[in-house]
């Protein structure tokens, strides 16, 4: 068999797909829940950055994973609340407010990193913690699955779990029902006594929690440090992933998984002597094409529905 095909079909390839898909799954769920409530949160980039930074700094000072996780989530929710306050209460356009918050997050993290660690690039001088990898004894005996699923970072499994939690919240809680109602027809929801602003705010808070988990995974699992603008557009890719999946749990998961495959391919194609820029551009072109096809399909359905 062709050595290239062999490396793609190996378990280590799928292992790395899950590894690189995780920091997209989390923010994609965050985008999805905000989109269901009717306002797309494009501030996930900023939320992830702030949480990634907070996690690293707090863990360096407390040496406690739980406290760092908790503070990182608080920090992410704080940014989401700011977005909610400005867009819902102060009537700012949510896209512009989110752009401002992304700028804010990118600047404040580097600013504080310099104040704390006297470095503007990475936090390697801070002794921060990472979340552990998990080894399941029962998986050991199964040949292929073990190679793919075993020994992943614990947050990778939490990402899977989050997809399920997202499903439960959206389809099996009163809050989920209200979020969907508000997103589909705010006037109707309001007329039966649903507080639209409050529900949208709750959706944004949840979106902050998912985004925060993504940020924590980046700086305390995927790598072991915080780096300037380390999200590298994942918060934006997440928008594409969730819209491919129609904001549904499994759809969003597969949208993110698709980007995981493309990213992992980028790494696995590297030895093939193709200029790295050409490989790196693939995920973005794929996003544009998929998004266009997806939007074309949805808008057609809508038009049919309108007739």
């Amino acid at each position, binding site marked *: 068999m062709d050595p290239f095909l062999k490396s793609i079909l190996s378990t280590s390839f799928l292992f790395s797909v899950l590894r690189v898909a995780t920091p997209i799954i989390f923010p994609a769920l965050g985008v999805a829940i905000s989109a269901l409530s009717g306002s*797309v949160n*494009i501030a996930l980039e900023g939320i992830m950055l702030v949480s990634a930074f907070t996690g690293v700094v707090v863990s360096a000072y407390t040496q406690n994973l739980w406290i760092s996780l908790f503070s990182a989530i608080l920090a992410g929710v704080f940014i989401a609340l*700011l977005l909610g306050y*400005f867009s819902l*209460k*102060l*009537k*700012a*356009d949510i*896209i*512009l*407010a989110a*752009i*401002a*918050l992304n*700028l*804010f997050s*990118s*600047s*404040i993290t*580097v*600013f504080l990193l*310099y*104040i704390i660690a006297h470095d*503007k690039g990475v936090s390697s001088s801070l002794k921060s913690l990472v979340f552990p990898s998990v080894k399941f004894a029962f998986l050991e005996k199964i040949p292929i699955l073990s190679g793919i699923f075993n020994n992943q970072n614990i947050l990778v499994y939490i990402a899977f779990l989050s997809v399920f939690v997202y499903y439960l919240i959206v389809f099996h809680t009163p809050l989920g029902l209200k979020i969907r109602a508000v997103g589909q027809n705010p006037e109707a929801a309001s007329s039966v006594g649903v507080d639209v602003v409050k529900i949208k705010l709750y959706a944004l808070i949840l979106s902050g929690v998912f985004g925060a988990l993504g940020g924590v995974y980046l700086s305390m699992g995927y790598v072991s440090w915080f780096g300037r603008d380390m999200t590298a*557009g994942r918060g*934006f890719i997440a*928008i*594409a992933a969730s*819209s491919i999946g129609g904001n549904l749990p499994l759809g969003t998961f597969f949208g993110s998984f698709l980007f995981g495959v493309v990213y992992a391919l980028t790494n696995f194609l590297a030895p093939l002597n193709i*200029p790295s*820029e*050409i490989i*790196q*551009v693939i995920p*973005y*072109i794929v*996003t*544009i094409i998929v*998004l*266009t*096809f997806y*939007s*074309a399909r*949805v*808008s057609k359905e809508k038009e049919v529905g309108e007739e």
Partner: protein
Amino acid sequence: MEKFVLKYFNLIRTIIAILIGFAVSVLILVIVSTSSIESIKYLFLGPFMSVSRIGNIVELATPIIFCGIAIAIPFQASQFNVGAEGTFFISAAFGTAFALIIQKLNLPGFIYIVLVLTFATLFGGFWGFIPGYLKARFKANMVVLTLMLNYAAYFLSIYLINYHFRDKSAGFLTSYRLPENIFLKQFVPNTRIHIGFLIAIASVFIAYYFLYHTTLGYEIRMVGFNFHFAKYSGIDVFKVIVLSSVIGGLFAGLGGMAEVMGIHRRFLWQSLPGYGWDGVVVAIIGKNNPILIMFASLFLAYLRIGGRVLNLLSDVPFEMVGVIESIIILLITAEAFLENVKYRITVKEAEKEVFKNGSLS
């Protein structure tokens, strides 16, 4: 007084937002800096301390003005096209490549300059056409499309320069140097202010005339003002969405090439310079009005140069400016910010009118 406040309410609100931004920066400096008074002086007065620094403000404002216009035109149509960043970059890269390819023709300087600037401008228009068309035809999300296109533009440009036009003798990743007869002249001694700044100012007035005094400009603003009204009153929304993106792209492309020809004289960026995002900032501060965008760009450049002076001479990092910028934009975009003040003044004014006209009788 109250009438004055009501008439210039938006302007006053913007100024108050900026003042709050300044107050926060003073507060941060007091907390963070070991010599706060000095630091405050560097931030606010630093940019005016020498001719070369004032020059720096104008130099930096030049690309921001171009990108601000590029963002404002689609924003006027309520199209959140944030593609100026990538358009600026890729037009500069392909423009540089084009200039190097036709170098052999030995064209007279003026024709050469015009030809290259035109090529880069049209390239920008082409790059703006992509999201415009995909949005208008397939209803794809404009923000996501343009964000992805920015990354695509970045990687394609770097590939083009590093693999095909790289100057291997330079010691760093950069394109070959452009021939001297294509340079845009730097015409103020001791600064790098170049002809591109004059082109930027001309672009401001062209864009202003276009938006407020032409039919297409009117249609663009109408689509932004009320999409459904525009659609049902017979405006070709498809055309407006595509053309607002294309025309925005033209300005970003022109700005990218002018920056290369006026300042660097070769394509030396290895990361996105961020002028497109600055364009979003100034478009917000300037309420998508090209003339106000020109002032907003100079203001932003002033703030940035202050930040650089601060970074250089004190213990406070440059990124503080980004924090201040974001606070200012948040307050300006927040429509309800100070709205109750306006409401109260309006009520008071109305009451006065009623009494004056004696309508009680």
